[in-house]
């Protein structure tokens, strides 16, 4: 009986998310580590929101003008998942190589961080989980910043 309900619920969930077009058919090897973000699906939703925000951000929007939103959100989700211990593997370019020569300064880096904070707020991510992720991302500034 219990099993039947579980299967029915799972099927219903898939059906619903499928209707929204918001299922990404991927789970992190260690979903528990990113449970505070709603798992891998949650990270994807946060990062799609983030990419929309950075594209609209007057300070950094031009840097993302031609960026494919889904591709970037996927790369970011893989990266965040890896950093948070979710066991994913980031397959994008090396951070330093990817940002070299773009003239990125601390205020650009922070503008993205603030958009991420807004996206996490919108997704209802707790303060402690938000600080955990921001703490992992902070050292990347050294590679991204043009000195």
């Amino acid at each position, binding site marked *: 009986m219990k099993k039947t309900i579980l299967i029915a619920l799972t099927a219903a969930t898939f059906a619903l998310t499928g209707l929204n077009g918001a299922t990404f058919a991927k789970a992190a090897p260690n979903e528990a580590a990113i449970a505070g973000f709603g798992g891998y699906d949650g990270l994807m939703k946060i990062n799609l929101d983030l990419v929309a925000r950075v594209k609209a951000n007057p*300070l950094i929007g031009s840097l993302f003008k031609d960026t494919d939103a889904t591709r970037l959100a996927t790369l970011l989700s893989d990266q965040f998942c890896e950093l948070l211990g979710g066991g994913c593997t980031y397959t994008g370019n090396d951070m330093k190589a990817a940002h070299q020569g773009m003239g990125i*300064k*601390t*205020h*650009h880096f*922070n*503008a993205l*961080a*603030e958009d991420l*904070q807004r996206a996490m707020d919108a997704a209802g991510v707790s*303060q*402690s989980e*938000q*600080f*955990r992720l*921001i*703490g*992992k991302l*902070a*050292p990347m*500034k*050294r590679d991204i910043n043009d000195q």
Partner: protein
Amino acid sequence: MANLSKVFKYALAPIAAGLALTSAAWSQGYSGKLLATGGVSTVEGAGGGGLAPWALITGYGTENQIGGAAFATIVNLDDYRLRSVGAAVGFYDRVEISFAQQAFDTRDVGTALGLGRGYTFKQNIFGAKVKIAGDAIYDQDRLLPQISVGVQHKQNDNGNVLAALGIPHDKGTDYYITASKLFIDQRLLANVGVRFTKANQIGILGFGGPNGDKLKPQFEGSLAFLVRRDLALGVEARTKRDFIGLDESTAWDAFVAWFPTKNASLTVAYVDLGRIVIPGRQRGVYASLQLSF
């Protein structure tokens, strides 16, 4: 009013200099630091907590921007009232210059000391701070804290009164080194510093005294917890040396600082400044409003 115009005169110079440089840096944007990472303004004008400066540079300017802060602080103690107003400019997240004017109202104690009721000691503080190593925010994968060195030149205009109390100087200079580190994962900001000073009650009662006339190292530090990115709770302590022989002792406080935007912060604290001339510790409420960019 004369007092106020004097304050503005002093405060306007760094602000004007800041604005001139800012116009050059404006094309680089402004207020690029993350919320709250400019800190609040100490009673001596430097960026930090309320009593102890941080190694962080005041305001919200990043490496190619200029930031700044202006503040008004009032500390209502059992028997005294301290008011401090001032401003600071942070250049390229590297150098900070600051000014503060303090007015220490002795209220009824002034009568008892024969100075007259409400006799007010005034002090001007010119400060500078330079970041020399590390980054408190971004070096999350390194142990090295952000380290800054600073100087505060203090001019107290009460030489005659102080001489009568056996205090030799109404001017003095403090030198300090301070280290700050934000542990983002733990949501803690830790700060420790050493100040070389011979100030009595941070200079309000002059410099040096019967018990000594040499700079002595004093500890100052703070620990703050980020409840949210716009709200910090913390404690601070600052040791003071008894140069006069009136049992001057450690000051501490417990504070709440709220940063609704990068342009304003409000800090409220319970303070215990230790004994100040008359017996008993001076406790009270500290409130500080800061405007910043």
